């Protein structure tokens, strides 16, 4: 009796989770897909977003995604490699872990505020796609670092010792044994962090500006998709176009996640090695 009750409970909670996901996605798609047209995707924005397309926003978002990746991946993965392969000071390791957990739990709006006062005003970088990428990188690094660290720590010590035992240096071991095995796990962390950064409105709203122009340089102001969506809805400009924007956002995120998963799985089948992370 008791067991049956628990079974039903677990089943229901699982079912509710899936149902919620399906309902949210379906609701947005039903409202959003009718809005999407060639013009909506590839035209300039008109009349504050009531008319025209969202090309400038798509481009802003893609610029920001690429720049954030360039800033955050080397740093996040680099710290993880340093901590797992070189650093022997346990206190320092614990300290960095603690700091990164703190950074990961700071609300994104506070990152936005920090970005505004420090990056935009104090460093005088101004409102720009560049500034927004810096702020989003700060948010992405802890996630990339944490997932990479777990992955790297799970690589069997024997494998590392085998490489060193053949006379390889630390660096050679990292490049030809450790990284190839860790790539799937590290990629998961990168995707987790970057899709979050891609969908972030609060952290960028004080640092990126709010232009409707197509950004021509990374030092131009811009308006990424989530911010556009937020402004369209909160200022009551056009709920229709807000749903359209949301749909595009969801499709891009799904595309990134699914295509990366596909490549990671193919890679894993090729090297036949799986590290839990």
């Amino acid at each position, binding site marked *: 009796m008791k067991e049956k009750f628990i079974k039903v409970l677990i089943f229901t909670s699982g079912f509710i989770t899936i149902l919620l996901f399906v309902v949210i996605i379906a609701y947005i798609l039903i409202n959003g897909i009718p809005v999407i047209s060639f013009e909506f995707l590839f035209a300039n924005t008109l009349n504050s977003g009531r008319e025209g397309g969202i090309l400038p926003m798509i481009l802003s978002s893609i610029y920001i995604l690429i720049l954030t990746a360039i800033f955050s991946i080397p740093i996040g993965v680099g710290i993880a490699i340093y901590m797992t392969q070189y650093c*022997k000071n*346990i206190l320092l390791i614990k300290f960095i872990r603690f700091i990164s957990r703190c950074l990961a739990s700071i609300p994104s709006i506070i990152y936005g505020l920090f970005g505004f006062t420090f990056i935009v005003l104090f460093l005088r970088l101004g409102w720009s796609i560049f500034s927004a990428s810096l702020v989003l990188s700060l948010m992405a690094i802890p996630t990339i670092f944490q997932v990479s660290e777990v992955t790297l720590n799970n690589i*069997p010590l*024997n*494998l590392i*010792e*085998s*490489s*060193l*035992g*053949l*006379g*390889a*240096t630390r660096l*050679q071991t990292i490049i*030809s*044994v450790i990284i*190839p*095995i860790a790539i799937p796990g590290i990629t998961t962390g990168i995707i987790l962090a970057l899709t979050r950064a891609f969908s972030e409105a609060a952290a960028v709203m004080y640092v990126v500006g709010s232009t409707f122009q197509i950004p021509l340089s990374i030092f131009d102001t811009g308006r990424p998709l989530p911010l556009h969506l937020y402004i369209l809805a909160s200022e009551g400009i056009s709920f229709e176009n807000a749903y359209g924007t949301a749909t595009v956002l969801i499709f891009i995120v799904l595309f990134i996640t699914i295509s990366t998963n596909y490549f990671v799985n193919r890679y894993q089948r*090729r*090297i*036949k*090695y799986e590290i839990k992370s």
Partner: protein
Amino acid sequence: MKLKVKNFNVKINNKDILNNININFKKNSIHALIGPSGCGKSTFLKSINRMNDLIDKFTFDGNIFLDDKNIYDIDEVSLRKKVGMVFQKATPFPKSIFENVAYGLRIHGIKDKKFINKKVKESLKASALWDEVKDKLNSSALNLSGGQQQRLCIARTIAVNPDVILMDEPCSALDPISTFKIEDLIQKLKRKYTIVLVTHNMQQAKRVSDFTSFFLNGHVIESGKTNQIFLNPKKEKTESYISGRFG
């Protein structure tokens, strides 16, 4: 004598792991290290190629000489090239069979393709694996069986031309047939290499080794020719261990 160990002590985290170890390893011989778990044999083995340097809070005193040269006067990369190691669990890299054996050559900067091909073939032959894998050199090493993987690891080790091969219970994860093949291989390898073999299996020590040292709680209780240790042990503790009264 290929390897000489003199008054060697090891502490890890200020705890005594090895106390005053003195053993000489004869060239082209198989020297077995036996003893119960936790007696320090693996730590000792890893001291010889300085793998313990990786451990935080590892300290030692005393000396180990390879060809009369202190191992701490040789840089660790050249030392590890001369002193290869095979682990308990086979640890092939997630690369092809060919690349696994070529790995050691490549990291030492050898680019000559002909030389690498020749060396890979030689090493696979020397480790009695060639006939089983010659048609699938480019398939993943992780497709091989446990015993084949272990022989691949031996091939990988001998590809870089070591003088000494350290083996840390190389057969403990293998079935009897694979074990037999590896033991047979070890016997053949001693013509060219000096082998230090850590084993839990006393029958194995008896079957393959020329010399045996018995470790207990970080001390070497007795060391000598394998026949003498097993048939006519001088110390009481050795006798009770090999007759299975503890351990």
